[in-house]
């Protein structure tokens, strides 16, 4: 499981994460909602070791991401899909996907590339397997991004607003893939603005507000709360999101 305990993160004098506690168990899909600037990306970047914590502790299957020796194990267990894809521009789709399996997991290149093609096929991209990122549309790039993460056979997928750079049609392509992954029991931490979609795939919804995790509820309760006894901040956020 992913365990986040009392995590604090500041940039200069601005505290961006202010004592976050969160558990993500195997098989769960936890969606993180929150307005822009509330610290969602920073939380993901703390989980994958891109940001140094200023306080607290994050472990992935008991490997502490703040300890250099354990970080590599933690990183083998989780894989990130980025908002802006972050593909390697000088490599084809297949090469993008096969790089880490070859270099990190030491899988023979031939096999890694065959696996990459199978993955691309599963997201409807077999015809674009040898294209470079610059030759792909945004939605296609993000599907490559997802395959690149899946190729590591991670226990946990970290997804940071992976559809927010895509137009609606491409968004639905990508979300369909996530729905299938959720259905197959993939554990996911899913930062998103797609509230209705989050409702359909999440086991839990957490709500970040100004660096604090103000709500952590099973999906049904979260949306029930929207109806009446809701915290005003969530009701306000949800109604704003729905209007957009």
């Amino acid at each position, binding site marked *: 499981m992913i365990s986040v305990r009392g995590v604090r993160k500041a940039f200069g004098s601005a505290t961006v994460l202010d004592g976050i506690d969160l558990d993500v168990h195997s098989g769960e899909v936890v969606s993180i909602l929150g307005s822009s600037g509330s610290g969602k990306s920073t939380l993901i970047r703390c989980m994958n*070791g891109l940001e140094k914590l200023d306080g607290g502790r994050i472990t992935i299957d008991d490997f502490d991401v703040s300890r250099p020796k354990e970080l590599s194990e933690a990183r083998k267990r989780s894989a990130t899909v980025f908002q802006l894809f*972050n593909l*390697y*521009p000088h490599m084809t789709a297949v090469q993008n996907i096969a790089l880490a399996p070859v270099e990190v997991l030491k899988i023979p290149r031939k096999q890694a590339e065959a696996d990459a093609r199978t993955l691309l096929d599963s997201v409807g991209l077999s015809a674009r397997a040898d294209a*470079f990122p*610059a*030759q792909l549309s945004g939605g296609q790039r993000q599907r490559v991004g997802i395959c690149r993460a899946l190729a590591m056979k991670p226990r946990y997928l970290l997804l940071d607003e992976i559809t927010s750079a895509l137009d609606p049609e491409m968004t639905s392509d990508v979300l369909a893939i996530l729905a299938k992954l959720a259905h197959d029991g993939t554990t996911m931490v899913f930062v998103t603005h797609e509230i209705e979609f989050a409702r359909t795939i999440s086991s839990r919804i957490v709500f970040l507000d100004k660096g604090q995790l103000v709500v952590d509820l099973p999906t049904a309760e979260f949306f029930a709360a929207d109806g009446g006894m809701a915290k005003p901040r969530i009701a306000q956020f949800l109604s704003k999101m729905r209007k957009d």
Partner: protein
Amino acid sequence: MRYTAFTSYDIVLLAQGLGVSLALFLATTIIGLFIGSLWAVIRFYRIPVLAQIVAVVAEVLKNSPVLVQLFLVFFGLPAFAKINVTPVEAAVITLSGNTAAFVYVIAVSAIESIGRDQIEAARVFGLSRWQILRRIIAPQAMAFAIGPLTGLLVNQLQVTSLISVIGVVDLTKIGNILNLRTLKPFIVWAVVGGLYYVMAKLVAFGGARLEKRLRAHTAWKGL
């Protein structure tokens, strides 16, 4: 009476001078590329002390005249360090160092031109710094640097002509010798200049071809 006519042996002399210039150019290019890239890697890893030393050395080398550096090595080393250097050794040391300084500058900016986001992705997927350097940074930095490097090498080829002043018998020195004997400066220097021109064109041509290969492979036109 002076013998001022050209002889067929002059062609042999020119060929020898050309060979010396070419050999010096190739040797100092290889050494300079190696050392300059090594310096850039030292900077990439932010190795304490070494990285600062490298930055200062490169700064000094690229901001002082090559001729002054050459005199410093050729006359200075024997005088101060009691190390005797032959003209060829002095030429190799000076030109290699000078090339290295400019290769360093080009390599550093090529490395810095690569987007942070893809490097972060590679880190998150567990690649080591060395793997990132080798698989992500080097291939892209090479494609980026090949243009400026070609320009640099064409220039360094011309710079080799300076070494004739300390007695290396390169193409320019041969030009000097032939000129003094034949008293036909216009012909002699036109031929010598033509030979430098052809060499420079070959370097530029090779660089352009390599660049095309590296870029075709990456197909970045859309970025």
